[in-house]
């Protein structure tokens, strides 16, 4: 008797239906413990009053689209990178430029300030992440001291130092994230699981400091264990690319901004999405999000040139900020929460307070 031959299409169909069944069961399990909505719990909280924030500094100097920025721990310096390959370090308070590096590639999509304040990391279409020590000797060519740390097989979308200057976490268009030792350039751990480009990442502010979250073009946000390389949690409720992820200050949740024009809040202990920040009048994607110090406010930079400020607990929009003349591509709150900085395709950065 001839053995029955299983058609490949049958196997795929079978796997697909099994996967769908599992997904449904997972949603059911998650829903069982969902006994209340965030805005219901927040009903007893006092509503926020009139909200006034203005541009307090405008940083001009980039010759093309600003793609990324990061704050220094000294709460006033920032590093920014742009499409024309320039990386600039500013004292945002005085608006003075302190350092400038020209990368050998265009589209520097990622940059980060080292915790010590003595170096910056950046990368983009060169598929690499390089570290530049910041020297104050005007005669010294910063580019000469550059150290190549990370190597991906596609563009670098985001990078971040861990607790010290010694390790860097990167995400890439090649669908992976990776942890690198800066001194040796050695790959310490790689993280596989996204089905498409990874666009963003953020490190958890937890006591044990061992996890991070990433977001990608596969609409998924994944939480990773840095030691084992395993994906420990995954959320797939967005309807389009996730451009930005940021942890809530307590580390128990994170927010995401997506091309589907919504920002969402995911609770890690309840293991589900708990809030959607959206409005019918907001039709452009959110490129970048960050929380205020208390986590009560969520700032979102959007592709329609605006910044929307959301009440995280009540789910309502508190304010809309105009000013940029092109897409807002990057947004970060300062380390002491006194201000936030936004970078835009209009070549400028703005500090708001």
């Amino acid at each position: 008797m001839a053995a029955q031959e299983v058609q490949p299409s049958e196997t795929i169909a079978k796997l697909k239906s099994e996967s769908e069944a599992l997904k449904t069961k997972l949603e059911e399990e998650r829903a069982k413990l969902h006994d209340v909505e965030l805005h219901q719990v927040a009903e007893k909280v006092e509503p926020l009053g009139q909200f006034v924030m203005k541009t307090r500094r405008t940083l001009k100097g980039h010759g093309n689209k600003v793609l990324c920025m990061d704050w220094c721990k000294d709460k006033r310096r920032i590093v920014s990178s742009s499409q024309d390959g320039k990386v600039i370090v500013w004292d945002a308070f005085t608006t003075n430029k302190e350092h400038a590096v020209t990368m050998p590639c265009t589209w520097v999509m990622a940059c980060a300030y080292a915790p010590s304040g003595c170096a910056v990391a950046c990368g983009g279409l060169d598929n690499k992440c390089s570290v530049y020590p910041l020297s104050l000797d005007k005669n010294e060519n910063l580019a000469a001291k550059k150290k190549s740390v990370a190597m991906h097989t596609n563009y670098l979308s985001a990078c971040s130092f861990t607790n010290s200057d010694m390790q860097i976490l990167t995400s890439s268009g090649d669908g992976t994230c990776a942890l690198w030792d800066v001194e040796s350039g050695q790959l310490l751990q790689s993280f596989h699981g996204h089905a498409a480009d990874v666009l963003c990442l953020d490190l958890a502010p937890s006591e044990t400091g061992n996890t991070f979250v990433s977001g990608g073009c596969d609409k998924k946000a994944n939480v990773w264990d840095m030691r084992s390389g395993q994906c420990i949690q995954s959320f797939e409720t967005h309807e389009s690319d996730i451009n930005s992820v940021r942890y809530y200050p307590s580390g128990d949740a994170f927010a995401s901004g997506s091309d589907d024009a919504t920002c969402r809040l995911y609770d890690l202990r309840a293991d589900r999405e708990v809030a959607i920040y959206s409005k019918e009048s907001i039709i452009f994607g959110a490129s970048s999000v960050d929380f205020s110090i208390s986590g009560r406010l969520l700032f979102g930079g959007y592709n329609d040139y605006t910044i929307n400020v959301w009440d995280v607990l009540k789910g309502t929009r508190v304010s809309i900020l105009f000013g940029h003349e092109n897409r807002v591509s990057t947004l970060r709150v300062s380390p002491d929460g006194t201000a936030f900085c936004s970078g835009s395709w209009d070549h400028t950065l703005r500090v708001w307070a």
Partner: protein
Amino acid sequence: MERVIVSMQDPDMGIKMRNQRLLITVIPHAMTGRDIVDWLIQKYSITEEEALHTGNFLVKYGYIYPLKEPRNLCLKQDETPYRFQVYIHTIYLARKNIRKQGELIEYEKECYNALHKRINHTWDFVVMQAREQLRASKQRRKSDRIVLECQEQAFWLINRPPVSSIEHNRKSLGRNRIKSSICLESFVKYCEQYQDHDPIMQGCLPSNPWITDDIMYWNMNAEMVPMPTKLRVERWTFSFMELLNDPLGKKELLTYLEKEFSAENLLFWQACEEVRHGEASKIFLAPGASRWVNIDSKTMEKTLQGIKHPHRFVMDDAQMHIYFLMKKDSYPRYLKSELYKNLLARAVVPQETKKSVFPFMRRQRHSSPSPALVTQTAEDNGKAQPNTGKTNTGTAAQI
């Protein structure tokens, strides 16, 4: 954007189309710029500024086109007449066809021909619109054009079916979850607790440097100050992590532990941090060592095993053990100690500095020494110098 346009065209709740006057001609079935703005304000409960902003995008992207000046693609909030672009996707194809003769892919070609048959009577109009948009787009910067093209192309691309991960979903089913009510309540509590520490929400004393140009706030909260602010000292009570994250808090804790002859735990923890993030640590674990660390035998064994074959995480278990020990024991005792209570009583509450009343009397914005300079000087001097954040003028190199 499509969603908004569909709502606008709704026969009941959409914009009312009328005959609009254009010089001496009467144009049927059109709407004014003012109609559009008013409708947006009403439908989405937004301000006039926001409605104008959004409306402009609808015109720029070609969903609505002006009848008076077809080349000027912007929304005017007056009697200027506009119409909906019915054949937007057809126009995209026509544009592509005009620009790159014969470059439509098979699928697009089929659609193009089918559409041509169906709307034969308005074909000239479609081609004319396509030409207009091409002309207008030539004036836009190349990068913007590319972005728009990509967005439109996406409409014609066939989506790939998502790849599912069965193993992952199986694992996720087994995880422990916490009730929403408990989780969400914790967010409310956290926001409440930190509200006074959120400068954007509550302001900060003496003033926000970005608003008043006065850096007193940064000076008073520098890493090592002779007397910290009350808010800062209070924050150490929020969690053990808050105390350890503040160098001044860590120093105070060490002082307290030294008084109790139990400083080794904190010193060990600090050494572990250094192993984790860089420098090698000294061994505190040998039982006969001059400084003992109290961890249980199981953790001790595991650590000693790891040290034989060192790896990055060799100290992790021991470090975590010590961390939680301090959190449970030393931390609460420190908060109840005289040392802490005295510090809290003496801590400063800054006086408010108001923004200068006269705008032309703007305060001088002082620069501060770059962190890179501080480290360089320290290396030159051979000893570490704390960054006091004093006001200095012109020490940073300027470009």
